[in-house]
């Protein structure tokens, strides 16, 4: 190589994919806001047993319906007041965060495993496999999720586990559809062909060549499905067919609060607001991840 000291020109070093990702992440406002709010809620949820002022299940009927701190007769002992059974609202809220996040993440993981597996094999193998998986997806899409969940819960009875599994087995469709189309695009790309020509087994190709390159869309869908699962659980619990009392699910708290809506509006408003914040932060992060990993898609 001709590398004379006389002629040398300083070369521009291009950043590695990791460095690019870090730089883009830190400069994306939406993502950072969403991430901060989510981390706060996550911290509350994880530290709930340590920092919650009271036991969320402890009822004290003499202290029913105490107003929250911004009313004239609120006390710091119950900053967000108590509900109709005398349970501290702040503690219930914190424990409710645990339930929402637990359900959201578990359902996402279950549905993710199903959806990614189906989507990737449909996209990679095509032909009959694709036909079969597409049939499964179409069938699943024609089922109204909430009604099916209601029916199942009515049959078996509602509990945390039942809700997680029902949701997990129902909301995999978006994973499957997106993974399928992403995999199809990569199926005949040269580095996959090169790996085949080297003699890689199909499993190895799927795991080391295909999936790392569809991770971008995967992560976006995963965050959105967490939000989806949380909302579905809240809806089911609101209808009384989800998590059963006395578990402090936010949906259940909204349901329990609707009787007192006119006189003690905080009982229904507070869990509603926090639920919206959680969904908003997750959506902001998901949107941000999409922008960060594929900025060429933006105009």
């Amino acid at each position, binding site marked *: *190589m*001709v*590398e*004379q000291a*006389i*002629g*040398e*020109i*300083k*070369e*521009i070093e291009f950043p590695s994919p990791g460095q690019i990702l870090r730089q883009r992440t830190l400069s994306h406002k939406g993502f950072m806001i969403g991430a901060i709010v989510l981390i706060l809620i996550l911290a509350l949820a994880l530290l709930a047993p340590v920092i919650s002022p009271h036991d969320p299940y402890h009822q004290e009927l003499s202290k029913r319906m105490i107003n929250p701190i911004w009313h004239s007769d609120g006390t710091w002992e119950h900053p967000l007041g108590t509900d109709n059974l005398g349970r501290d609202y702040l503690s219930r809220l914190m424990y409710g965060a645990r339930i929402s996040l637990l359900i959201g993440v578990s359902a996402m993981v279950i549905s993710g495993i199903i959806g990614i597996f189906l989507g990737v094999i449909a996209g990679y193998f095509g032909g009959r496999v694709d036909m079969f998986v597409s049939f499964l997806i179409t069938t699943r899409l024609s089922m109204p999720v909430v009604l099916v969940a209601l029916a199942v819960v009515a049959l078996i009875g509602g509990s945390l586990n039942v809700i997680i599994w029902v949701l997990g087995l129902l909301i995999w469709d978006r994973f499957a559809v997106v993974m399928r189309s992403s995999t199809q695009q990569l199926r005949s790309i040269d580095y996959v062909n090169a790996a085949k020509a080297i003699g890689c087994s199909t499993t190895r190709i799927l795991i080391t060549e295909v999936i790392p390159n569809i991770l971008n869309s995967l992560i976006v869908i995963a965050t959105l499905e967490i939000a989806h699962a949380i909302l579905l659980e809240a809806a089911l619990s609101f209808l009384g067919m989800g998590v059963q009392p006395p578990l402090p699910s936010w949906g259940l708290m909204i349901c329990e609060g609707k009787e007192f809506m006119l006189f003690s509006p905080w009982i229904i408003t507070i869990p509603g607001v926090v639920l919206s914040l959680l969904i908003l932060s997750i959506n902001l992060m998901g949107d941000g991840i999409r922008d960060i990993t594929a900025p060429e898609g933006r105009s």
Partner: protein
Amino acid sequence: MSTLLEIQGLHVEIPLSAGILKAVRNVSFSVVRGKTHALVGESGCGKSLTALAVMNLLPQSAIRCCERLSFDGQDLASTNERHMADIRGNKIAMIFQEPMTSLNPCYTIGNQMQEALLRHRRVTRKEALDRAVFLLEKVGITAAGSRLKQYPHQLSGGLRQRVMIAMGLMCGPPLIIADEPTTALDVTIQAQILSLLKGLQQEFDMGMILITHDLGIVARVADRVSVMYCGQVVETGDVTQIFENPLHPYTQGLMDCIPIPGKTQRGEHLGSIPGIVPTPIGDMTGCTFRNRCPFVSKACAESNVTLQEISAGRAYQCLLSPEVCAQNLRGGVAV
């Protein structure tokens, strides 16, 4: 032989996170009616950006400035967007590389060709259609009437490019800019399309700017050539001068790299230019070719080399004298 387009001292800069990319630096050339001026260079040399700068179609963040940019007497540098839109398609037509993405898949060929004319002239749809038929036949498409009702995806690559050329001619523009017009086509179709372009140019007395990386195409089609490297024009001249007597070490190096059946020895090493093109960001003193040049000297890093004109229309940008350059070509200095 009137000068159609004159460009003097064109600069295009694009601000990036790593610094300001000086994509086009001090480019000057002119185009005459009936003649083809080729801009030849490798990827990243700025040739496409130069054409986009003329049409004012640069990306949003790009900054253009020039000493002189005049088309048919009109100063394009100070023309506002509305008037530029009137000129594009009407006075200056552009033919791109990928006919599939340049044609809208949702509309028929006839529809798109009519629109090209109706945008600029007050004619009826029927008159526009007649002109479309006339031009399709001119570009060698048979059964023009039925072709007009077809959609782009129903035609082959070669046919689509012919349609693009016909569309470009709808308003009878005096200047055509063809950006890699045959790169995406098969080699047997390429020769046909180039012959077609050349013939139409002669018939309608149009000026043409041909942008390509293929020296073979330049040799056979162009009348004048500007060789670009890293945003600058490093050599300019008539096509025979450039190919038979290249002066700049880059031009000489490029010619050496090309395998020619019958001339280069099979199995022997081809000439090569070691290294890669530097990115034009940051301090740009000295010659940008110096890290790859076989004749580099200390002076190349220090002084700002400029384009020197050695005779009418013949210029190059190197510290070495024309006599030394010519000697280098004849194998005076081993690489």
